[in-house]
């Protein structure tokens, strides 16, 4: 049923076919698939976003920072009350959660962890490119980061842009041409400026302050992803999940950050329209947080966490997990939710689906041929 609906949509894109620029997707008479990665820096607490409610073990360990009004979605799991847009996607069969997962890193340092969640490797500060960038390289697909910097996760790709709206104007292209000449001897500067000069007009116009909040940024990403000649990958970067103190429960610091995440998802859903059916969104963080609260009503750096996925490319809503349990003996080093699977396996399957590529090729291109199980069936069938 669902599959046939997608085929119908793919067949109804004649408008796109008239677009003057040929990209791979258009040339092959197909709507392009989109991938959105939302990076959650600081260590997103999977047990706050998607709390375990099978028994009271979690609430006991977190007397001051428990989620008191969870939205139950299965017998054992719930959503944080701030994830309202996510919940409505869940109800529409467009949200899946991979619980108890982590990148293969147990050192509990933010900066090593963030490096690895972006590089896709196993040695901090070693690989100079990112897993999304490597997957895009050669595929002829554009990537866009909604941020000032070009994040490591996209580096290594070819047709990249980073964007944040601003009020200030660039000079005319004649002046930029002079700089372009000067940059001939610096390949990186040359490429960066070339992309700037090719930007669509919508990205060149001065933008007001309100375009800079998460919803505004998501709107821009939705516009770009909806453009058949635009990027197929967008990266968001939300910081502030490192709540060592005053983490809060239903409200408070972690909740505020989850709401930003939810705003991005809600805005993308609304703005992308039908394009959302060819899209998958996934969260990414460096580690989860400790099962128990600490001295300051916060949590410490942990290990396993949840990957929140959404989008029309998902066949149905479900929790996918080899749930390790929260009893003391099941915790990693006696303190953290364990990881039951290398998160990179999940991302590899997502990439394979979006790029319509072979799982083995993705693992080779993006993840250094690491030994990653093929999760495609568990996520997409």
């Amino acid at each position, binding site marked *: 049923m669902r599959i046939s609906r997608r085929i119908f949509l793919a067949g109804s894109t004649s408008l796109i076919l008239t677009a003057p620029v040929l990209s791979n997707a258009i040339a092959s008479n197909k709507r392009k698939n989109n991938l959105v990665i939302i990076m959650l*820096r*600081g260590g997103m607490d999977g047990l706050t976003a998607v709390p375990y409610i099978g028994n009271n073990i979690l609430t006991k360990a977190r*007397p001051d920072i428990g989620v008191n009004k969870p939205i139950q979605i299965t017998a054992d799991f719930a959503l944080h009350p701030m994830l309202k847009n996510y919940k409505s996607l869940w109800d529409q069969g467009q949200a899946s959660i991979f619980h108890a997962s982590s990148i293969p890193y147990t*050192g*509990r*340092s*933010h*900066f*090593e962890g963030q490096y690895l969640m972006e590089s896709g490797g196993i040695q*901090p500060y070693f690989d*100079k490119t990112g897993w999304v960038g490597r997957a895009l390289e050669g595929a002829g697909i554009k990537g866009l*980061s909604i*941020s*000032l*910097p*070009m994040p*490591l996760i996209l*580096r290594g790709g070819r047709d*990249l*842009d*980073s*964007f*944040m709206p*601003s009020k*200030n*104007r*660039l*000079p005319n292209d*004649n*002046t*930029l041409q*002079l*700089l372009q000449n*000067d*940059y001939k*001897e*610096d390949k*990186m*500067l040359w490429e*960066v*400026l070339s*992309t*700037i000069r090719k*930007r669509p007009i919508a990205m060149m116009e001065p933008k007001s302050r309100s375009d800079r909040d998460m919803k505004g940024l998501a709107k821009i990403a939705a516009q770009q992803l909806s453009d058949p000649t635009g990027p197929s990958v967008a990266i968001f970067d939300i*910081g*502030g999940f*490192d709540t*060592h*103190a005053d983490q809060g429960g239903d409200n408070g610091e972690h909740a505020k950050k989850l709401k930003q995440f939810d705003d991005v998802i809600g805005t993308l859903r609304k703005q992308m329209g039908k394009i959302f059916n060819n899209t998958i969104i996934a969260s990414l963080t460096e580690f989860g947080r400790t099962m128990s609260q*600490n*001295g*300051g009503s*916060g949590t*410490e*750096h942990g290990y396993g966490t949840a990957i929140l996925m959404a989008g029309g490319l998902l066949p149905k809503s479900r929790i996918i997990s080899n749930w390790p349990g929260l009893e003391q003996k099941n915790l990693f*080093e006696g303190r953290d939710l364990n990881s039951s699977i290398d998160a990179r396996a999940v991302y590899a399957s997502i990439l394979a689906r979006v790029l319509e590529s072979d799982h083995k090729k993705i693992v080779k291109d993006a993840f250094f041929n690491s030994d990653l199980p093929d999760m495609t069936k568990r996520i997409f069938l």
Partner: protein
Amino acid sequence: MKPKSFLRKVGFGLRPDEKIPEDPLNWAKSQMNSVPNLIWPGKIYSEQEMLDIRVDFTAQEDKIQKTEKNPATAKVKKNKLYRGSGRRYFESYELAIRHHQAVYGNQPVFERFWHFWGNHFTIIDKNKLATFNTGAMQREQLRTLMTGRFADMVYDMTLTWPMIKSLDNFKSRGPNSQFNVNRRRKNKPEKGLNENHGRELLELHTISPNAGYTQDDVINTANIMTGWGFIGGRKGVEAKKIGYQGSLHEPGTHIVLGKKYKSSGFSEKTKGKNQLRDLVEDLCKSAECRRFISWKLCRHFICDDPKPEMIKMVTDAWENSKGMLPQIHQAVIEATWKFGKSNDKFLSPETWLIQIARMTGADWPGDPKIFKYDFKSKLNFKQKKIKYILAELGHLPFRAKQPNGFPDTKNEWLSQEYLVRRIALINNPIQIGLYKNSLPLIDISKKVVEQNFDEPEKFLKFLNSLELKNEQSKSLISILCSRKVLKA
């Protein structure tokens, strides 16, 4: 290396009227021996004054939040409080002091190192610290520590008010401290350890993960740090003092990296107080610490991927001087002189901004008189533009989001959007204080090239060709955003 490139690699370049030092190496090295006075002619607020203003502000804001139920009235009251307390003013003011010093001061190399250490001991953008406290702390404490030992700098920075606040150590309590023993006796839930600051002391401030410490080492470092926090606060008002409370300290001996830290002292109040000092001394004596900090300094000044011979000059100076910062700094300068290559280091947005201000002779950050504020009016654009521009460039120095601070390599500082922001800034040169009545842009551009390029001929020829084509308006961007000026 070539002298003019060197001056930009370790300093901010030459002003239009500045003479090139006869002996650039010694000119730079001699700046490390003393802490230059601040040349800002306006009022300098002490760290304590800023803390008083802050604490008063947070108490009043809290009160409005708690007592004023009508959102419209609350907004009016808050706005009045914001103006009266300088909530929107002080960060710009502090930035102006910092940039004024860098642009007009006579020890620019010292200022570059000051900026480096400010980022090394990052106070993250949290709890209005950037608004009221970070700048004043860096001015009053960090700056004066730069002529002493690295170990003293680490110890003192660990115990600054903003650091304790931002890394939560004031919330950390020994699980078996007197405090928790009492709570257990009263059947109250215990309030335990907070690892945040302990981990960053090891990872970011001293030895780095390369030292191979474990989770137990992190926990024991946090144990050692328990007791250090705020003292003398009362309900609804933030405490202003940092101090040690033995009753919160985790008793006993703690092992970090195989070494035992015993608790000395007899009084219950001060027992265990010595452990942090002992630990910091050992961390700073270690080879890992020397290597990590020396590498980081070389990366900041010389190139993104410093070579072992560069780092060795600094670690040698560290060992010989037993960790004295002037000697360490001088070794970095010498390594730059000896191994540095021209235009090999992509500059951070703030360093680039200060360099172009200094080299063009722009009115930056503006006449100190315009920063006078009556604590009643709305800020005018001149007063807030320094903060606005640094935000546009993506580099407000007191507002790093994470405790590892701002990045320091080309891969991280060069992106489409970062470059757009720099070009767009120069596209409107009034913003940086090059007004319509300043020298013509083409003359300013020529002066920058003559004064600061080791081989100016090609660029002067280019500028002359622009003049012939009547395209002078393109000159400033062509020079200030050229790869020569973006890099040092």
